[in-house]
């Protein structure tokens, strides 16, 4: 077990808490930088997709995991980011300007969606965001002059100045860089007042208000930030899939995103990464499963969403803190090695809370 001697307050706000973390994250960074030289193009592409999912996941995690607002409509933000980016690229805008515009535009839409969401929580909010996603899907189909309707639209190849970023090698580094910057921004947010205000709203709206937190402002901001990250991921995803069509952004995509943050572990950025790896490689796993299963089951068309749903339910029942929560338990088992008790992570009934103010 590690004991950290603290001599200054700044030790609690720095990103790396001790040398051990610096070492392990350094190792991870080295591994990620070396990966393109070791892996085949296929796996490099899959890793890029994991990074893109993770960026979208940061957005959804800030909203669902940290602010406590469930969204079933994040595929819409992904779509808005992707289409906006593709549209401006087609107008001849440079890559960086176009991606930034797509991010900010999606954030703006997110803020606007957040306003009616102020009065809703839980299941009502989930349904409202679901409705929003369906509206966006219809707009994509019918606004043909911009989106190309059902025919879809081709996405131009990414390039910054003369540096072409297509090809799995360069695109991998682009996605990695965007992910690292996104993580850094999210971590900064979470260690400053706005991030704390968001978690305060998640845990108790009534006392957040009494602590001087403006609920409407903070929730709208959370929606905008969340949509912004997801829009940014969308603009990268546009390049990854190369050709945009409305059926790339369906309800299933939204559920996949939600599955990612829940399976990864709500309320932690580690969870986003674990969830993204899980979602990124799950289709592969299912493909392998199809080969081994008897053909009667393997050929069922809805197998994939069915398995997604099943996993979501199982995780919610057996490990509400997701993969990251499981990892924390494994770690504390080894830290406390001979002294680990079975009841150490037993969930306790929470104390009575003020019901009359609801």
């Amino acid at each position: 077990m590690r004991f950290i001697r603290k001599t200054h307050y700044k030790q609690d706000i720095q990103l790396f808490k001790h040398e051990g973390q610096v070492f392990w994250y350094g190792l991870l960074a080295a591994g990620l930088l070396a990966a393109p030289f070791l892996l085949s193009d296929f796996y490099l592409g899959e890793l890029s997709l994991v990074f893109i999912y993770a960026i979208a996941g940061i957005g959804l995690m800030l909203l669902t995991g940290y602010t406590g607002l469930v969204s079933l409509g994040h595929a819409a933000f992904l779509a808005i980011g992707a289409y906006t980016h593709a549209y401006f690229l087609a107008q001849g805008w440079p890559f960086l300007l176009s991606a930034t515009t797509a991010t900010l535009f999606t954030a703006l839409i997110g803020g606007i969606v957040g306003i009616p969401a102020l009065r809703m929580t839980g299941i009502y909010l989930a349904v409202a965001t679901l409705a929003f996603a369906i509206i966006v899907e219809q707009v994509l189909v019918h606004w043909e002059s911009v989106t190309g309707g059902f025919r879809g639209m081709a996405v131009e190849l990414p390039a910054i100045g003369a540096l072409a970023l297509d090809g799995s090698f360069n695109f991998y580094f682009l996605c990695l860089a965007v992910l690292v910057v996104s993580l850094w921004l999210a971590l900064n947010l979470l260690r400053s007042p706005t991030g704390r205000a968001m978690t305060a709203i998640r845990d108790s709206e009534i006392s957040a208000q009494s602590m001087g937190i403006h609920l409407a402002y903070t929730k709208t901001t959370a929606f905008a930030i969340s949509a912004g990250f997801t829009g940014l991921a969308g603009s990268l995803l546009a390049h990854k899939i190369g050709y945009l069509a409305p059926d790339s952004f369906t309800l299933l995509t939204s559920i996949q995103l939600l599955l990612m943050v829940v399976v990864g572990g709500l309320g932690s950025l580690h969870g986003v990464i674990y969830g993204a790896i899980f979602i990124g490689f799950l289709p592969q796993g299912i493909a392998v499963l199809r080969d081994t299963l008897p053909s009667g089951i393997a050929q069922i068309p809805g197998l994939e969403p069915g398995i997604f749903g099943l996993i979501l339910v199982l995780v919610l029942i057996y490990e509400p803190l997701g993969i990251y929560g499981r990892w924390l338990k494994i770690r504390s088992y080894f830290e406390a090695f001979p002294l680990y008790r079975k009841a150490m992570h037993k969930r306790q009934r929470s104390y009575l809370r003020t019901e009359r103010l609801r």
Partner: protein
Amino acid sequence: MSPQPTEKSLLAANGLTLTFGGVHAVDDVSFSVEPGEVFSIIGPNGAGKTTLFNLISRIYDANAGTISFEDDDISAVPTHRIAELGIARTFQNTELFEQETVLRNLLIGQHVHRQTNLLQEFLFLPSVRKQELAFRKEVEDIIDLLDLQHYRHQVIANLPYGIRKMVEVARALCIKPRLLLLDEPSSGLNPEETEDLSFQIEDINEELGTTVIMVEHDMNLVSQVSDRVMALADGKRLAIGTPQEIQQHPEVLKAYLGD
């Protein structure tokens, strides 16, 4: 300390009334709280004590009457502005941010003193870093005052009830309020913790100069720390006076014991 008409009251309620359907939860209650005093509100269950708190902290809108704080009418101020004005409160059954550490809970108390904007926070500019360190310093002062050093990095959900109560008081103090509203601070505490609480309320009152209004059932605690007491029953004010006066007041005895 009895109310002096010449002295400027910190908080004054005038004819406050709140009805839920046909129930008069608070019925034409007037009182004033002077700077620096500890003012207790007592009464049987359902007397309207907590409702009165929710009116002062602007969680409920009064049907009639006004509340003024330092001569400003706060009857229409939005809930989240109350903390900025210098009124902090605790809740009867604790309303802490359960999934966060004690430290982060207390730092939320500093939220009203925030000077940075969202963009600066995204980039964690030096101004944000400086502000975080300053917040931490303030929070540590409160931790020292209430002896919470051991619990600094613990998640609220793992703490015993008595400690949670103190954390909630600490969080309210992090606002640096001029008026602190304590809603049944001793409920759920054992006799020893209640004893500590009375010293801590005195410390808060004397060292920080914070005016305290508290709703309390424990008459020992009330008579130890209060300068004045107001008794409520069925939403109506029965009496205001020193703890001794209230304990012998015939109306109060009638409300508690019946005829």
